[in-house]
């Protein structure tokens, strides 16, 4: 073969090719005899630089480099859900079957199962005009997810032939289109899409529906909307992964894409075990029936780690286009940023802050901007919510990844070391966190749960703010010298902190709490606060109120009231009223 391109230099995952005009930017290439997957990252007339997604040891100068003519892309089609991929959409299960427990290099396995037959129902007939994004067939991908086959973006034409309903494999042509240009276009069960390009949509919608997570501190104080973006920053051991797991398990998205980007291998096997054991209460099917896992653990090649985030979001967008609400968990974006830094270092680029490349903010922005609630090309409604974990070095939020992430997200759940040390989980600090979605979501809450929810939430957050300023004083002089009304604030804030914000992920009732129960809990706590305030203003010592045991009772109500017995809250209110009446009676 003439003009064959060959490897010139090798430095870790970075490979260079001399004097060639054969490649385009971001083109996917195969490097070496083992056909390692790589991507073109810089081109000059002297030299083309390629990052390789696999271990390069054993590669030689002079080995062939073959272009594919297309940018780095993923195969989209049925079989994605329930699967587990590495950072460039290679199925880890199939790789394990082929090469054993350890991942060897250059294993050629198709991304999706080519031989499996799917039960396809055709939705179009000969003569129909199809435009991009339109559904031409459906098939049950899992018992809970209907896979809708969409005409790829930028393709439209008239149907010239349609296969009957029946069983088809991934590459079977089921519909033939005549394009406007006169060419024939075959629609199969799958399509390809470049991972670094956002899939087109008809229009973006306002983020006005919350993503219900069942986690009190999130739903009540820092809600995120469907199609929103949230960051979970925290040092090691503060429970980032745990928070992500909880949201993945319980949030009301239709599909979860979980990207384990540069994280622990044992953690991924835990996700696998737990998600297949966990039964979704909504449809009595295992969680895995609506989950895609992307596992590029920290010891897998660093370039694939960089790609894993884009692979994840592309899969998420594909299901969004079918009209699903998708939530993507990226754990952790810091590892991804470090992969950027590592590759940038190998390219000898001029570093900016802390060695990160200067394009870090623009890459982060590109990623987070792919979230959103939209009208897809096929009409209807879909969304991609991004929840990205950030692992700041030394737990210091002023480092570049956290700071730059903050600019592109609207919901910030700051995890706090001291809360984690006292095993207060989720360790979301209520002073340092924020959500910008409040005003967008207020209408929804008012419509579904009444004005009361907003009022209760505001009171709760006011009390917490007051407590935090009171604690400054307490730290200096002790709690004993405070006047009774301030002591009451501290006591009720403790009930809110321990009895409400803290949530036990391992307790069957407490791991997921409906908004309805959240509202009732808040109401009960605020009711006690209100009653106790009356007593205190009538000069009844606060110690009398505390002795009645009401505060302790509310601390434990999250465990004591099962999720299916919400009427018990009435008894609590009644008991509060009775006890308070008793105290008043004795006093007078």
């Amino acid at each position, binding site marked *: 073969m003439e003009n064959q391109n060959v490897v010139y230099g090798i430095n870790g995952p970075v490979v260079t090719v001399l004097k060639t005009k054969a490649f385009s930017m971001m083109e996917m290439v195969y490097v070496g005899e083992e056909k390692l997957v790589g991507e073109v990252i810089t081109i000059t007339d002297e030299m083309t630089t390629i990052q390789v997604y696999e*271990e390069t040891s054993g590669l030689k100068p002079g080995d062939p480099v073959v272009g594919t003519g297309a940018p780095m892309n993923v195969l989209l089609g049925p079989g994605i859900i329930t699967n587990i991929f590495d950072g460039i959409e290679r199925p880890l299960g199939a790789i*394990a079957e082929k090469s054993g427990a350890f991942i060897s290099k250059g294993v050629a396995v198709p991304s999706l199962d080519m031989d499996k037959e799917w039960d396809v129902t055709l939705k179009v007939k000969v003569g129909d005009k199809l435009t991009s994004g339109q559904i031409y067939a459906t098939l049950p991908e899992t018992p809970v997810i209907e896979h809708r086959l969409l005409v790829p973006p930028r393709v439209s034409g008239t149907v010239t032939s349609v296969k009957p309903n029946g069983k088809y494999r991934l590459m079977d042509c089921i519909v033939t289109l005549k394009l406007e240009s006169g060419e024939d276009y075959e629609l199969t069960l799958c399509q390809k899409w470049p991972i670094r390009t956002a899939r087109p949509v008809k229009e973006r919608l306002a983020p006005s529906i919350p993503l219900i997570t069942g986690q009190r501190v999130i739903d009540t104080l820092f809600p995120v909307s469907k199609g929103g973006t949230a960051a979970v920053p925290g040092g090691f051991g503060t429970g980032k992964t745990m928070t992500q797991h909880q949201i993945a398990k319980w949030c009301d998205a239709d599909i979860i894409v979980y990207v384990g980007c*540069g994280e622990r*291998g044992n953690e*991924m096997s835990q996700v696998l075990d737990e998600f297949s054991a966990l039964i979704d209460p909504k449809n009595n099917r295992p969680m895995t029936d609506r989950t895609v896992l992307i596992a590029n653990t920290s010891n897998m090649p660093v370039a694939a780690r960089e790609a894993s985030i884009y692979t994840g979001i592309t899969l998420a967008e594909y299901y969004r286009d079918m009209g699903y609400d998708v939530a993507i968990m990226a754990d952790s974006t810091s590892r991804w940023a470090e992969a950027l830094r590592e590759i940038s270092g190998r390219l000898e680029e001029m570093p900016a802050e802390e060695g990160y490349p200067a394009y870090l903010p623009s890459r982060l922005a590109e990623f987070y901007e792919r979230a959103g609630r939209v009208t897809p090309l096929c009409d209807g409604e879909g969304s991609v919510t991004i929840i990205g974990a950030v692992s700041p070095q030394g737990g210091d939020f002023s480092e570049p990844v956290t700071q730059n992430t903050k600019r592109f997200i609207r919901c910030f759940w700051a995890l706090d070391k001291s809360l984690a040390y006292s095993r207060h989980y989720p360790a979301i600090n209520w002073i340092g966190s924020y959500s910008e979605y409040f005003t967008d979501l207020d209408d929804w809450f008012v419509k579904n749960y009444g004005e009361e929810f907003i009022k209760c939430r505001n009171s709760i957050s006011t009390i917490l703010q007051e407590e935090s300023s009171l604690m400054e004083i307490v730290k200096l002089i002790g709690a*004993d010298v405070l006047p009774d009304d301030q002591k009451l604030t501290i006591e009720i804030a403790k009930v809110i902190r321990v009895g409400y914000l803290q949530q036990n992920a391992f307790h069957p009732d407490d791991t997921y709490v409906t908004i309805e129960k959240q509202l009732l809990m808040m109401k009960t706590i605020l009711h006690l606060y209100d009653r106790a305030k009356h007593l205190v203003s009538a000069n009844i010592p606060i110690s009398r109120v505390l002795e009645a045991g009401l505060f302790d009772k509310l601390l434990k109500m999250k465990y004591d009231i099962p999720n299916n017995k919400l009427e018990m809250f009435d008894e609590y209110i009644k008991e509060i009223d009775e006890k308070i009446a008793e105290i008043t009676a004795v006093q007078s």
Partner: protein
Amino acid sequence: MIIDYVGVKEINGSLIVIDGVKDAFFDEVVDIRLDDGTVRKGRIVTMEGERIVVQVFEGTRSISLTNTRTRLTGHPMEMPMSPEIVGRVFNGSGEPIDGLGDVFPEKMCDINGSPINPVSRIYPQNYINTGISTIDTLMTLIRGQKLPIFSGSGMSHNELAVQIVRQAKIADGDGKDFVIVFAAMGVKNDVADYFKKSFEESGVLQRVVMFLNLANDPIIERILTPKCALATAEYLAFEQNKHVLVIMTDMTSYAEALREFSTSKGEIPGRKGFPGYLYSDFASLYERAGMVKGKTGSVTQIPILTMPNDDITHPIPDLTGYITEGQIVLDRGLQGQGIYPPVSVLPSLSRLMKDGIGKGFTREDHQALANQLFASYAKVMDARSLSSVIGEEELSAIDKKYIKFGKLFEDKFVNQGPKANRTIEQSLDLGWELLSHLPKNELDRVDDETLNAHYIENIEEKEAAQSESETAPQE
């Protein structure tokens, strides 16, 4: 045909540059023969056409531009493996130094290994009883876990590691499937001797594979030490079905060697001069712990690292903490009070603990007790910081109770001495006993049923009565 390349083009630190090399591959090992007959090994780290950069393991001292002949070996860095390596001593690059001759290889293993496929991993759930109350109760070690000890110079991390080795029941039954791989990186001769002696005393020396790279050995070998050790561990665990405990000390020296090497290659430094890929490099070591489907063996890691200036936010402990499944942090304050092991409970953590304890593993009440101990001890810290401002006298009654609980907890629970081997029941019961010194309504992390089952009412009166009855007969 074997070609010798005569001379080198450039020498810089531990790196040499050779021109005109044909048919080499990335990561290949080369033999460098000096004129005086000595042979050193090196590894290709960068290639540009026919120019290669070689990292020389034993250092470049006395290499000149003309006095070398370099030969390609045709394989990456490998180590000979056989079941007989147990009980042997190697240097940092995997060559025997115990005078017993070369290992007769059953197979050659690439020391870099390959990543374990996440789908082939078994989620670790088998708890290891170490006999140390703080670890068993509050940061339980699990088979297949990587749990580092974060320490500082002069603290008793070595004693703790030895005690874990001596007391840990890692293998089932008679423990004959249990092997220790010990990797010393840049440690002092005394420390290496201490470990050797301790292994001897506890009768495990025959089950130890040692890799020694002492403080004055070449740093390039130090970079290879943990890789050789882990390749050995993987071989023993996944081919010989042993339960392997890998102790690596001191990771700080390893990271510093890596920094030295990276600087000499002229790489762009990241935080505190460490290379930008420190995280990935650490991960490629730590992630080699675990268990895989279809094999009965396991690799458990206890890396030890000394935090420079006791700073837990230093890049070395920081990045380690992000990869390992928890950490055991030692505290200089406790060490100063004569408490052994000086485990600082609050920042310590075991991430795999929650699924390896409780009913069927340890005891039903374990998780609840651990949560409550953490929460209560955190309050002790609040009370102490308050008392340091306003004085202990001024504290409220409840804060005083916490101060008292904190003292008891450190004296009785944390402090247990290097010889004491407590069963899990003893540790858990002790925990409840100490918690009973706090008023019942303060224990808000426990549900009522568990609390009623374990809380000892009026413990102080009972203790007083008991000590009275003990003294009574003497009267």
